[in-house]
């Protein structure tokens, strides 16, 4: 009789420890799943905002050059070599955290502006991953046809 009682108790204890093991298994399984998900997220590539950022900077650059041209100042600045005025106009027109570098080329691709038209350190341009480049053509000034190509590079500081 005693044997039977002892056996029953042992069986009960075994079932009980089986239940505990199931809990531990479930916890471990869950932890494995969570850590796997977390691990994957660590390696998941975050979507890059560079294309959108570059696109927005290009729009800003084109908009500013277009408006200076619209006020009939761009051709005057370029053909009369008023580089300081052109730089100032771009500085006040662009948002405060946008830096630029402008080069003016003739139709053969030779740079015309000798003084560097730049706002912001060269380091900003070198270190930035999103550099936007805008090309804008000025066909001529007053009655003369002599196209100039403006290449405006923009980065956010």
């Amino acid at each position, binding site marked *: 009789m005693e044997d039977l009682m002892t056996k029953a108790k042992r069986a009960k204890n075994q079932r009980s420890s089986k239940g505990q093991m199931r809990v531990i298994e479930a916890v471990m399984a869950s932890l494995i799943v969570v850590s796997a998900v*977390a691990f994957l*997220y660590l390696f998941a590539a975050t979507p890059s905002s560079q294309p959108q950022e570059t696109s927005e900077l290009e729009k800003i650059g084109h908009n500013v050059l277009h408006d200076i041209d619209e006020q009939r100042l761009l051709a005057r600045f370029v053909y009369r070599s008023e580089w300081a005025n052109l730089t100032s*106009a771009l500085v006040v027109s662009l948002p405060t955290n946008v830096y630029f570098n402008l080069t003016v080329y003739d139709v053969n691709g030779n740079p015309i502006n000798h003084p560097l038209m730049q706002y912001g350190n060269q380091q900003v341009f070198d270190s930035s991953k999103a550099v936007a480049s805008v090309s804008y053509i000025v066909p001529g000034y007053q009655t003369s046809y002599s196209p100039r190509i403006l290449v405006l590079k923009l980065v956010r500081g």
Partner: protein
Amino acid sequence: MTGEAYDHLMAVVVLGAIFTATVFIVPSLSYVNLLYLEQQQLQNMALSVMKTVLFDEGYPANWGSMHGLNQFNPNDVKRFGLSLLSDPSLYVLDPDKVQRLAYNPMGNFSYSQVRDLLGLSGYDFSLVLRPQFNVDTDVIIPLDKKEISFNVNVTRYGGQPIPNAIVCATIVYALMKVSGEAYSTGAINMENRTNSLGRCMGTQLISAPPGSEITDVAVIFRVTVADRATMVVCKQSRPNPNDAAKISMVGDNLIAKIDTSLPGSMDARWICSISMYNFETSVNLYNRTAPPWGEADLKKGQNMWNMAFPGLSQTEPSILIFTIRTESADKGIGRTIVLLIGPFTLWTQGGVISMSPGPVGSGASVSVERDVIIAGMAYIAELRLWKT
């Protein structure tokens, strides 16, 4: 049996806790991505809204001036857009439409009306049209109005000073003969450049001929950088010059409107002269310089005066200078001549026109900036968009 039930209960509790924690942890792990996606959506939305605001003329295409001399009714506008109808160029805005975005004595849009027209349910926005740089002025006009001095500080909105900006100050004054009530106006131009700190100053004496007194002085500033960015600000000796009347321009019509809630608003007023000023040139549009004054233009109890000047809108006047014969602000002095600078909407807010529901929400928001041209002057249009 009890122990087994307890174990299962524990298992349910622990798994529930793990599930709940996971629900919170996993999204936070991908928070950067979610934020990025939300901002990208907002950015696309903001670009689309900005395109509508700047490139669309709206419907009717002349909605800014379609009511003429009548009060503007926003309900008649079926589609919103600020583009200038007659100009094929991009980024050129219609001054008549822009002036409907802020308080205008002839009627204006409310924020919610514009939001509804743009179809922005679930979003809030702020639209600001501001000059390309910041100009702070400190003008000292003494009581006798004879020595005018000013300090001007020109900076970018980030605070960086703008050196070498050309500051052109025009001091306009009204003189009235002590006997006979005849009056005249005068203007003095001063030009200066900002120093390396973006500052400049000036002092000017005004001499009144014997038997005349200076009744009002207004100082109008135009600040130019690289011949391009121009901003005009105005300071005046009279504390609330727009109490005499508020000047609006709708198409080719000039309108002077009186706020009837102000004390003395029922007094008669005579429009003595109107000139259009572009800093290089001044064109007289209307003149009546001496008695007999005849019938008042704004008779007792009348609150609006208007006159059409064909072709006025084509000339895009920067400034309109009115001289008005009205009751003096100082009691017992009788009638005096005061200056009014218009159009009202642009002047009251220092050239900044803003439309927003209040502070920007604390969540993600995006901002889009574009250069625009309004009445020949360069401005920055900034649109900020966020979810409600």
